[in-house]
């Protein structure tokens, strides 16, 4: 399974990456939305982890783009503001989970399991 982590904060990318690798995932990183979209088209990913606030296309824009293009890849959105959840929900509520900052790896793992488990069940 391969996860794309899109976040402008290198230490967050490193943290997620280390954690997911420990759990047996392959990871890839992008530091903004543009790079994330490029990578998303180049490779197949089972899960995306997106930060909302980034330069060069933020997380919401990236999510909108890939949904518009017909991809239903599971997405975890990280946000420091709870109320931003609603803005994202308007865009897409399917296959999206929210992870509040400061990130808690336990919760991240719950979301990953939930999204990928759902996918497995559906598939």
């Amino acid at each position, binding site marked *: 399974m391969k996860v794309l982590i899109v976040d402008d904060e290198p*230490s*967050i990318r490193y*943290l997620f990456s280390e*954690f997911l690798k*420990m759990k047996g995932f392959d990871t890839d990183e992008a530091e903004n939305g543009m790079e994330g979209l490029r990578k998303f088209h180049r490779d197949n990913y089972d899960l995306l982890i997106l930060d909302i606030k980034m330069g060069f296309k933020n997380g919401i824009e990236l999510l909108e783009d890939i949904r518009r293009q017909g991809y239903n890849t599971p997405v975890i959105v990280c946000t*420091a*503001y709870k*109320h931003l959840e609603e803005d994202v929900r308007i865009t897409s509520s399917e296959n999206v989970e929210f992870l509040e*900052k*400061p990130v808690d790896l336990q919760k991240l793992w719950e979301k990953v399991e939930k999204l990928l488990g759902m996918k497995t069940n559906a598939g």
Partner: protein
Amino acid sequence: MVKNEAAKMKKNRVWEMGEVDFFVVSRWILILLVLFLIGYNTARFEYMAVAYRIAVLYVIFNLIIRFRIFNFLKDERFMFLIFLFDIGFISVALYLSRGIEENFFIVYLLTIVMAAMSSGLRSSFPVAILSAVLYMWIGYTTGAIKQFNDPAYLLRLPFLFLIAFMSGAWADMMRKKIEKREKIMKEEILRLKDFYERIINSVNAGIIVVNSQGEVMLENPEMKRMFENGVIKEELLKKIMEEKRGNVLLRENDRFVDAVISSSRKEDLIIGIVRDITELKKMEEELEHSRRLADIGKMASYIAHEVRNPLGVIRGMTQLIRMRFNGEVLNDYTERIIKSVGMIDRIIEDTLDFARKKPPEIERVNLCETIKEMVESMPIKKKVSSKNATIIFEGNGEWIINGDRLRLVRVFENLISNALDAIPDGGYVKISFNRDENNVYVTVRDNGCGIDEKDINRIFEPFYTSKKHGTGLGLSIVKKIVENHGGRISVRSKKGEGTVFTVQLPLFRKEKNKEVCYEGVNR
């Protein structure tokens, strides 16, 4: 107002006295001149001539009148008596000096005219009648008239009455004209007075007028109301007298007063326009407070974004360390790091909550049900079991209120969580529900340590806390949420015995045909 009217009345009286004085002086000159003429005519400059003696008597008698011994003579209705008296004096002088002759006829005419001028026909006719009688009688007794039907004298009599009628009627006409004009003027003055009084009384500011001696000439009802509400009159007057012109701001008895002071050109009148700006000041303070809160909001927002990332890294990395390496001491250390991160996050969340401007999501909330559900949630359950506490519910009802469910949950979660923190091991928290016609009352009571008397008035202030690890925002958020729902929160506490928080929230109600019915039904 009263003082002004008194001054005006005084001025009016002076004017009336002037009119009377004019008649008195004219009479004196006329009568004395006539008496001297009679005296000169009959006895030249003989010292004790009858006419001169009468003149002295006349002066003495008039002085008596002047000094108000016969006060009733000042009344206009009795003025004619003075003229009758004058006619009497002249006639006596003529009779005693036996000096009647054709020329003195004119004296009667002048007296009649004066009587007419003083009080119209009412005076002129009696004077004319007496003049006619005395003139004829003196003429006859002194031998000037040989017989009563002497045409030379008889023909003069109609002139006396004609003059009496003409001058009396003219004077009456003039009087009526003046009275009419006076009436119009009085009405106009009253109208203007009423107009200005209405303006002064309806101005939403206190108006006070002081003379140069510092005496209050006028104060409007708003000004009186301010004095009743704690503005100190003496202080205000002192400031007004000191400044005379300009703006002053006074602080008296916790009231803020702004006075604009101006003076008349001669500085004989000092006018103060006074506004009670206590409410305005309060609003300014509140505005300043909300500005500060908005700043906190911005700051919190910045912190939320900037701090939460590295905080997440700290927590995540610590979790990773725990996963990779194991050991009792390491587990203890990392657990403490993770707990501290949670605490920092709580501070950020509270601050964000306090400053959040997000509009509430109003829905119908079943209050009892919502609170019971919340008590079953993880954080509260965890605290209950760690303290071996008991949660007791008292009262039950499907009481619906209009509100933001999440925020209301926050209110009771906070109160119950605080209560659980305060109670000793094995303590209890009692949640009671009551209602009246319009409100539902939720009481959260604990048998904990209670709140210090010095703290109780401050517990709802932001950043005020007596807890070791509290942010001091919890109860101020609670209060804000309750008040935003149109409710109220109160607290009672006794050190060592426990604390009772009562939240009052308005019941949801539907207006139907103007009758109000409540959705809540007591079970």
